[in-house]
């Protein structure tokens, strides 16, 4: 690799705190998000470990029930609203969408910065509410517990979540306008990287769903502050109405969390098998199908709530339909591997892990979409295991795969390959040991959100806690060596993976204006057959 010459890039273009806090550069904003969500992830992770430690034994021996309820509530709120929802869109999406479509920035850079500040304000309010005593409603805020009974900090937490919702809305709005209006010449819709398609679909969900949960959560707070009667059953209110409005967003929110990693998958699988993705159009359209169908299935969270049985039949039927586009994606990724040239770099290991875990997560969704089995399994650890397979096994595996893949682009440095591969394997093993036993626990009937439990559930809970420890260590590894690589990692070339995609045509890290000349696109995405591979031997670029 050529000698490293001092070159102006987005990281060294300007120095000082102010240059970061007032930046309008999408890449710097992405880095701001990366730092903030990492802090949130660590916090949420600590709460998760506390939950697992308490559940090591059947009795209530580590903390009081009150504390336990607050701990799992904060775990859910932080992980869902402050880590998973912003994770890939706000970090990788922010960083990469302009680069991938050949634009100098997002359409509205100031709104982009504003969205980070809104996220921070919402996050800080929520954290202050947590420090000042916490909240114990569960991340779902079910009424009338949240409105009439809980005497914890529901109001500030609700306000924090309400505010952070606008961050998500503004990010989605920015992406939609950018993808519509700022594509480079020649970059037609069906030449877009699938990462961009996935983010387009995600943004649709963000702008169509988030406002509904925002106003619902706001009214929960109003009911507490002003004694309004909106969901209060003693004044004729319907607690199930809250659940409808909550899940109208919060089910599609699962797709906010999983569509972006699906986009990452398409980039990883193609790059590390050096092949055009199999069934591009089907993967692209299936993202939109998921965004649409995802809005029609929310009440499958409510099959035992006393909802109308006719509504249950309709929602169950539609829930089976939404499984299909996800299945189509998995089959297409698998087919992409066929006759490829597959390397086992760390991002690809995460991709393999994602395909396996997402498949299990998706298929176990069938048990919950299916009315007869859902009655038994809902509100048990089966549900906990299922959505962790999607959100941790899917979303976080995808996030880590993406972070490794684009780390050279973001930081200009290579991460060490050997520890990265080890970490990927540890995460995979730790994850399965944590969550697979929970499927069995749920089938046996252990309910969610139980501080203590009958003795016969202990063996499986011990396995789960052991797995969580391994998983936690697995997550610490990347945190360590990625930070290490910032200083000691080898300098990255513009395209260390020999990947297609406009983001790899600009230096690593990219200059502030992204491209010195607006690129003109003449090829389809992932056109590895006509790709001009650099013959820089990969080994030299890497340290491990």
């Amino acid at each position, binding site marked *: 690799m050529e000698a490293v010459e001092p070159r102006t890039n987005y990281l060294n273009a300007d120095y000082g705190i102010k240059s970061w806090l007032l930046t309008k550069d999408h890449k710097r904003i992405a880095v701001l998000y990366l730092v903030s969500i990492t802090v949130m992830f660590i916090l949420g992770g600590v709460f998760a470990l506390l939950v697992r430690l308490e559940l090591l034994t059947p009795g209530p021996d580590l903390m009081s029930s009150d504390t336990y309820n607050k701990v799992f509530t904060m775990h859910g709120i932080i992980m869902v609203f402050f880590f998973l929802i912003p994770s890939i869109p706000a970090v990788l999406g922010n960083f990469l969408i302009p680069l991938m479509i050949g634009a100098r920035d997002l359409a509205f850079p100031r709104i982009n910065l504003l969205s980070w500040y809104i996220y921070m304000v919402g996050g800080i309010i929520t954290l202050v509410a947590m420090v000042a005593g916490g909240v114990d409603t569960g991340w779902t805020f079910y009424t009338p517990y949240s409105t009439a009974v809980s005497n914890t900090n529901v109001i500030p937490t609700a306000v924090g979540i309400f505010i952070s919702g606008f961050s998500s809305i503004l990010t989605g709005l920015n992406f939609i306008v950018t993808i519509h209006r700022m594509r480079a010449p020649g970059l037609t819709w069906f030449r877009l990287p699938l990462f961009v398609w996935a983010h387009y679909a995600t943004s649709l969900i963000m702008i169509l769903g988030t406002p509904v949960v925002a106003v619902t959560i706001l009214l929960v707070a109003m009911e507490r502050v002003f004694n309004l009667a909106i969901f209060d059953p003693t004044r004729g209110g319907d607690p199930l109405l809250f659940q409808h409005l909550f899940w109208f967003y919060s089910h599609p929110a699962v797709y906010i969390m999983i569509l972006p990693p699906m986009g990452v998958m398409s980039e990883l699988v193609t790059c590390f098998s050096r092949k055009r993705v199999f069934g591009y159009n089907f993967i692209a359209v299936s993202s939109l199908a998921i965004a649409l169908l995802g809005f029609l299935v929310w009440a499958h969270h409510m099959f035992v709530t006393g909802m109308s049985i*006719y509504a249950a039949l309709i929602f169950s039927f539609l829930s089976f339909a939404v499984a299909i586009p996800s299945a189509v994606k998995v089959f297409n990724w698998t087919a992409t591997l066929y006759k490829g040239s597959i390397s086992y770099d760390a991002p690809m290991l995460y991709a393999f892990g994602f395909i396996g875990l997402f498949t299990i997560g998706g298929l176990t969704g069938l048990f919950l979409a299916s009315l007869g089995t859902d009655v038994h399994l809902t509100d048990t650890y089966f549900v906990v295991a299922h959505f962790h397979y999607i959100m941790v096994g899917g979303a976080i595996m995808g996030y880590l795969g993406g972070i490794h893949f684009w780390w050279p682009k973001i930081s200009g440095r290579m991460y060490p390959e050997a520890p990265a591969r080890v970490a990927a394997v540890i995460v995979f093993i730790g994850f399965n040991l944590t969550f697979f036993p929970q499927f069995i626990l749920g089938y046996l009937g252990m309910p969610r959100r139980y501080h203590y439990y009958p003795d016969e559930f202990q063996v499986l809970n011990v396995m789960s806690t052991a797995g969580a420890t391994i998983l936690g260590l697995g997550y610490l590894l990347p945190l360590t060596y990625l930070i290490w690589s910032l200083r000691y990692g080898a300098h990255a070339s513009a395209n260390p993976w020999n990947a297609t995609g406009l983001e790899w045509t600009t230096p690593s890290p990219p200059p502030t204006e992204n491209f010195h000349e607006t690129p003109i696109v003449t090829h389809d995405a992932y056109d590895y057959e006509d790709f001009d591979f650099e013959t820089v031997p990969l080994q030299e670029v890497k340290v491990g």
Partner: protein
Amino acid sequence: MSEHVISIRVYFGIFFVLMALTAVTVGAAMIDLGRLNIVVAMTIAVIKATLVLLYFMHLRYSPRLTWLVVGVAFAWLGILIGLTMVDPLTRMWLRSFVPLAG
């Protein structure tokens, strides 16, 4: 630039139609039409909103993408209200649930 200048006369015309429709909707509410009352009120509201959208908001002269955006918004509003209402409207059919008392 897809800008289109609408003449002042059109603006005033729409304004008077909107005012007239407001009077009509108030008048119609005073007459007992049974279930039709709500239908009439909502129809007038939809007409008024459409006029504002088309002329005051220039939707009529906007690109197709804007129409698509507006269409998606109302479609999703329909999903939200429609699919939510499936539940309370059919709740008492089979199980002996009366919605609520209080």
